[in-house]
């Protein structure tokens, strides 16, 4: 296999600055297909900007990013944002919440195929038994898995998770990460996991990129050792 067909994202000589603040310079990186890629660094070091560059929402100051052809279709990128406005009174069930994403139709009701898409996403995230649960009353881990289920509804090649475990307790963190791991292993979805949590990164990640005040480090998570 050539390098081109195994790499999903290739960054060459990438630099990004906002005014005088240099986030990173000369970043060279390949994210292979099927990777569990972790993005680390303190707040404001460039993690979110890096994602925006990948999504084409920001333009780099220098260098370029090449995305594999399938990522040019937006449906092939799933994104779970860090914050979601779901309070305790939120009325919809997990199943109905996940199905909201199927919005590109004039039919008020879901087709058979759409229903099976929802069922599959719930199955993959282990939420089948919980699908009737009201999302507002669901646990933190269940909520995150519901967001995951919505993000993978269209079976994306790439799934970006923006600190999905930040507000969760320890059990729920592992519950979410085990789900992500299963997606990565069984569905072959490439994962980009943004996190502050070194323990989770070394347990689940394959490669990492760490931003640190204008510098960056990259490698395999095995190198991180007991950090």
């Amino acid at each position: 296999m050539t390098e081109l067909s195994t790499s999903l994202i290739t960054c060459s000589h990438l630099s990004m600055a906002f005014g005088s603040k240099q986030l990173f310079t000369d970043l060279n990186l390949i994210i292979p297909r099927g990777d569990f890629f972790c993005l680390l660094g303190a707040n404001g070091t460039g993690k979110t900007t890096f994602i925006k560059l990948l999504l084409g929402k920001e333009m780099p100051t220098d260098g370029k990013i090449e995305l594999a052809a399938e990522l040019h279709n937006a449906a092939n990128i799933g994104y779970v944002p860090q914050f979601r406005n779901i309070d305790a009174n939120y009325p919809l069930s997990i199943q109905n919440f996940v199905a909201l994403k199927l919005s590109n139709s004039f039919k008020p009701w879901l087709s058979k195929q759409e229903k099976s898409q929802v069922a599959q996403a719930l199955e993959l995230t282990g939420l089948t038994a919980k699908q009737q649960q009201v999302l507002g009353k669901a646990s933190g881990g269940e909520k995150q898995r519901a967001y995951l289920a919505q993000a993978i509804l269209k079976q994306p090649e790439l799934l970006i998770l923006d600190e999905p475990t930040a507000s969760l307790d320890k059990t729920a963190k592992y519950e979410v990460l085990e789900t992500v791991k299963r997606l990565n292993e069984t569905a072959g979805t490439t994962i980009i996991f943004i996190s502050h949590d070194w323990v989770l990164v070394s347990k689940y990640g394959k490669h990492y990129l760490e931003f640190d005040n204008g510098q960056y480090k990259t490698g395999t998570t095995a190198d991180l050792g007991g950090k």
Partner: protein
Amino acid sequence: MFALNFMRYAFEAGTVVAILCGAMGVFVAARRLPFMTHTLSEIGFSGASFGVWVGLSPLQGMMIFTILSALAADRLGLGDNHNDTSDAVISAVSAFFMGLGVLFLSLSSQNSSYATSILFGSIVGINQGNVTQIVIVSLIVLLALALIYRRLKFDSFDATGAEIEHVSSHWITLIFLVMVALSVSVAAQIVGALLIFVLLTLPSASAQPFCRSVSSLMLVSVVLALIGTWGGLYLGYLTNLPVTFFIATIETCFYLISAIYRRVAA
């Protein structure tokens, strides 16, 4: 009761408006816009008075004012979620337009009973022409709702998710605000400009603890709005007391029952 023309008209208009408001209310609640809706209604009062002054029907005056305000609210960014600045802006706008309404009524030399009927509703005072106008406007809004249903649903019940999917576009907010403006205008013909909450907010809020899907929320909300409207008309007919009073009381009771259920179930 139905031998009387005015009661028949009241039932026809009331039914259509209850269906419209029950359905729209679900999205007003999800987008957290009840107060903005109430303000539109107060602006509608000055629109209705303006209409009377220049020789239009109150409904037409109201539609002109509320649609223009909905467009303005959209320009000012008030059509999105509720926030603190919007509270202050909304208070100022409410006060100004209520004052303007009083001015127009005074200029049109209408007596105070006219103001009462605009502010508190005059369902048994409507005629065949009013019914036709109300039905046409309601059907247009319901048709628009059916057409944008899935996108509106996503944008209203998961704004963050919709934004990521590029579903949350500006025109959804804009169309929705115009739909709210029209709903407010027709609802005010039934329950009055000051009691718009009765049909646009209470039924959908009451439905919430019992429903897990947008379609069931709409169904229960419509049923509660219909029971209130029909019950109110019937009790008004029996007692000769204001219909609006009965509709407001019935809807408030539903809300109390729902709030108690929410407490007990939690």
